């Protein structure tokens, strides 16, 4: 038996469709979970700060929560990781230099956006701090 008849006789269409669907579902699920994983890890790593702020309830007065536009979230993450490596407070030119060396796109303009959105804030001594209360 050959041709479409053979495919139908061996349940080929169903196997192919279900197979493709499962592969897609598996990788799509993994993709979704992985895209959120780092956020969960970030939260876990900063849980103490989060609970402190929750308890005190005064953090908002010192440093209001800021909302970062969705298109900036990934960028914020990248730069936060770089800033974390530099420690707090960090040098802005060093962050810029670091971002350039890592090949990040438009580091100057990006840092400017982060400054304007108060994601990066000056400490008054010529150095900078990462805003501790950023939400998406």
């Amino acid at each position: 038996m050959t041709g479409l008849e053979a495919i139908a006789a061996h349940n080929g269409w169903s196997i192919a469709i279900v197979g493709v669907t499962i592969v897609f579902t598996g990788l799509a699920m993994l993709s979704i979970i992985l895209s959120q994983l780092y956020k969960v890890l970030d939260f876990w790593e900063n849980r103490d700060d989060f609970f402190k702020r929750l308890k005190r309830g005064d953090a908002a007065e010192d440093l209001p929560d800021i909302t970062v536009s969705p298109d900036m979230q990934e960028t914020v993450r990248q730069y936060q990781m770089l800033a974390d490596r530099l420690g707090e407070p960090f040098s802005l030119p060093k962050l810029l230099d670091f971002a350039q060396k890592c090949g990040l796109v438009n580091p100057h303009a990006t840092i400017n956006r982060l400054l304007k959105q108060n994601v990066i804030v000056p400490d008054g001594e010529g150095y900078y701090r990462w805003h501790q209360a950023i939400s998406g």
Partner: protein
Amino acid sequence: MPTDIQTLKSLDLFEELTSEELTQIAPMIHPMKISEGELLTQRGEPATVFYVALKGNFIISFKDGQAFTLHNRGDIIGWSTIVTPFLYTGTAVALTDGEVLALNGDDFLQVIQGESSIGDKIMSKINPIIAERVPYFSRDKARRDLPPAETE
């Protein structure tokens, strides 16, 4: 192309100058387009150009990684062109595309020293800015003079 008087008048640095005084200095001030990442001044190099920001954002960095940023129209860069030893104290880089007014350092110094009225008015605007920025480069100097262990 010299800058028009209205533009100069709208800037804090020149707002106290009369129309005649503005007309006098306008030919030596030239608008310049600046690209993101462009270097305007280099710390330690002879200060040859004075800039006034029209558009854009800038970072000025010092030794030991200190820095501040400028985001407003009228912010100035390169005051070392009119203060001895005429060497830039910081490195200025454009964070975004922008536009500045550029003044040749020698011309600017000549006007300030030669025209007392213009000099006084401009220096009265620049002095507070210098005072604000002094901690960056004076600390820079102080740190430079300290033994290495204490600078860490």
